[in-house]
């Protein structure tokens, strides 16, 4: 704001985003100011470098994958709409979902969509299956460099062994949901709480 030639968010846009994602007015404005502060190029979109400039994200093992999740297939820039759409996955689940129009599409922050988001972070090639190699990659990122490949391999094998019910040695989305059943609770509860400023 002020001397910066940043685009102000128009009321109609705020309303649209509110309808689409369910964020409140103040949350949208707050996130917009965050968006503009990240947008060093001031062109209304974020690139991967803008994200990578966030220091804590650099040391996060899943940093790259999270960044990729913001960018739709094949694109290198994400505008504010896309930014909000991704973040909407992390809103708390609403209890009045049941009252909604059954023909309307599921809200972005439903339980299934949250799990789908997490699943897609594992499943890079989007074939709806987590293969052993994809699992190995994730494990490698989380565990660091000191552990040998064999150890990780056995952990990956064990993980797939536990979760795989149809014997294809990959984890499908349904198996993912069942295997992390207790974690289901966590993904529903451990969501981003944006304090209304």
């Amino acid at each position, binding site marked *: 704001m002020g001397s910066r030639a940043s685009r102000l968010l128009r009321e109609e846009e705020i309303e649209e985003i509110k309808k689409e994602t369910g964020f409140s007015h103040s949350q949208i404005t707050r996130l917009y100011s965050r968006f503009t502060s990240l947008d060093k190029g001031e062109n209304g979109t974020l690139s991967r470098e803008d994200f990578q400039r966030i220091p804590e994200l650099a040391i996060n093992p899943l940093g790259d994958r999270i960044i990729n999740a913001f960018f739709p297939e094949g694109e290198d820039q994400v505008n504010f709409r896309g930014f909000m759409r991704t973040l909407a996955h992390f809103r708390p689940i609403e209890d009045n979902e049941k009252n909604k129009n059954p023909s309307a599409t599921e809200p972005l922050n439903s339980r299934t969509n949250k799990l789908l988001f997490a699943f897609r972070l594992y499943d890079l090639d989007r074939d709806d299956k987590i293969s052993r190699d994809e699992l190995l990659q994730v*494990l490698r990122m*989380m565990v660091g460099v000191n552990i040998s490949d064999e*150890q990780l*391999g056995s952990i990956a094998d064990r993980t797939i062994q536990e979760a795989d019910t149809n014997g294809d040695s990959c984890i499908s989305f349904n198996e993912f949901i069942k295997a992390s059943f207790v974690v289901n609770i966590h993904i529903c509860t451990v969501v981003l709480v944006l304090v209304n400023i």
Partner: protein
Amino acid sequence: MAPLRRSSTLRLTGLLCLSFLVFFSRGFASHDVVSEKSSGTIQEDSHSQANSTAHKKTFPVLSFNYEHVRTPFEISLWILLALFMKLGFHIIPTVSHIVPESCLLIFVGLLVGGIIKATGEQPPVLDSNLFFLYLLPPIILDAGYFLPMRSFTENIGTILMFAVVGTLWNVFFIGGMMYAVCQIDAAELAHVDLLSCLLFGSIISAVDPVSVLAVFEEIHINELLHILVFGESLLNDAVTVVLYHLFKEFAHEQTITVTGAILGVISFFVVSLGGVMVGVIYGIVGAFTSRFTSYSRVIEPLFVFLYSYMAYLSAEIFHLSGIMSLIACGVIMRPYVEANISHKSYTTVKYFLKMWSSVSDTLIFIFLGVSTVAGPHTWNWIFVIFTVIFCLVSRVLGVIGLTAFINKFRIVKLTKKDQFIIAYGGLRGAIAFSLGFLLDNDEIKNLFLTAIITVIFFTVFVQGMTIRPLVELLAVKKKKESKESINEEIHTQFLDHLLTGIEDICGHYGHHHWKDKLNRFNKTYVKRWLIAGERSTEPQLISFYNKMELKQAMMMVESGSAAKLPTIVSTVSIRNVPTKGAPKPSRAISKSREEEIRRLLRANLQKTRQRLRSYSRYELLNDPLEDNISEARFRKQREMERRMSHYLTVPANRQETPPVRKVFFQPEHKVYTYDDSESPRGRASPSCADDVSELKETPEKPDQSSTPRANRDAELKPKEQDDQGDQLKVSRCLSDPGPNPEDDEDSTFLP
């Protein structure tokens, strides 16, 4: 029929025990007479001896001197009574399904107290010193050490609100209302002033961890509610301590000053934070000590216990909150100590804590019953009834009010059902009684004690008994029997990273951000100081996985079956040793099929061995080599399995020599190694010793079949060298490493 007979036998035994106890308590009374007599005779004897040797005194073949073993004897008897009761309730399950154990124990206490009183004795009262110094710490330590940290920290805000604000509300509401009640002329309680009422309120309003644990343990409620009520009962100790001392001082002075009130508030922070700090200091020192305990493994559990107990006592010295100190010590110490101590020590710690807390808790309830019979009572209908009513009312109001406020900040809101259970689970217990007992001796004390006991009885009996059917009725979520799975661990960590990343993108410094920072700090600085050896750099996922594999391996050992091949291969590869011959596990066969195949193979192989044996008995020994080997091997396997299952439950030997030799049963299985040095020397029978020595590469003891042994050794040698590395690894994980690990391994070991 059989169970009935058993139960009637047990009732008989129970009655016999009770009667023994009664007779002994009678003996306590008459012991004075006896000891006097005995001392009289001794004096006489010495006198006569001194005087002249002419008096021939009879040498006392059998004398009775009860006096000098009296105290430990009585203590042991009480503990035995507690244990028999506990056993009895489990053998006769009918009653304990309806009535929680705590109620039954109080009832038994009432019975025993009644019997003792009926015989004219003064029943012992629950001495506050005994309670606070000896009976309470084990329970709190057990609870704190095994506190589920994740759910505790996730709900810490709610827990603190309930503990602090809720207790304060309870104190002032009950105190105030009771004062109002005392103003009623009909009650004849005009002598009870406001300060005394507030003091009473501060004693009675704290939720008691012992009772909560005892009752909630049996209803298996979901983890959230359990941690909320239990966490509240632990953390409200600080509030109770401060208010109790504060009002006691005020009641003494008979004035309330503003400075006093301000000092009270300051004192609250000092008490709680000071207690936590004392616990943290002891926890860190304990963790640091455990880094060096590899030199003497048997005393490891003692360090854990002593440091925690000292933390409690040190906090009590300064009137800080001992309970919070104990919890903080256990929580801080646990991750580092568990990474450092051996597996056997860990098991010892776990079982000793459970044992002590179980005995403590039983004793507390029994003594509560006995003290009820013993204590002088001043029964005032109005006071007691209104106390009970106001306790309930204030609890309900407090919970509802606080939940309405807390739910604004919670992600998972507390439903009405949850609120009801939290309110209903506010049980009072022995802490209230002991605090009341510490009051100065005057008429008000008896009045208060009677009311406290009534409230305790009401909460434990009525609420304790009805909470289970209510939980069923309201269909409250029960505890999920979650199997520990590697999937869960991976996904939990994955989600933690994900949410931390999202928080960073939003620029929001929330729960995850700080947790991540703490973890990073822990990993880079703290772990390096407090964890010995290579474990300090081990990622959490790896240690979790190792623990799981170890548990599975131990289960396999104890069930006497061969472990699954893929698991062992993975266990082997964990040790980071280049295993040249380790085959990749075949993915084609499922787990259960593999187990089937293994069972079939084993059964058939055994048959083969037996066939050989019977063959050798009736016919001339065609192949003496074969027979002896298979027979010896078979015997050895049985022996090793037997020793293995013993081995995992007996404490380690005092002297620990480095592992001498490895042994294996069947080369194709590559399952077990057995560390000779760990063989329980005391119980090795001569045949075992021979078996073991037979397999030594350099034989030290001669035995019958020297030629077959040499040949066999030659055949086994190349295989042995291959598996030497990994076999030792497996043995290492199942035994304690000696003080000087061999050079060709890294110093990794597992708790």
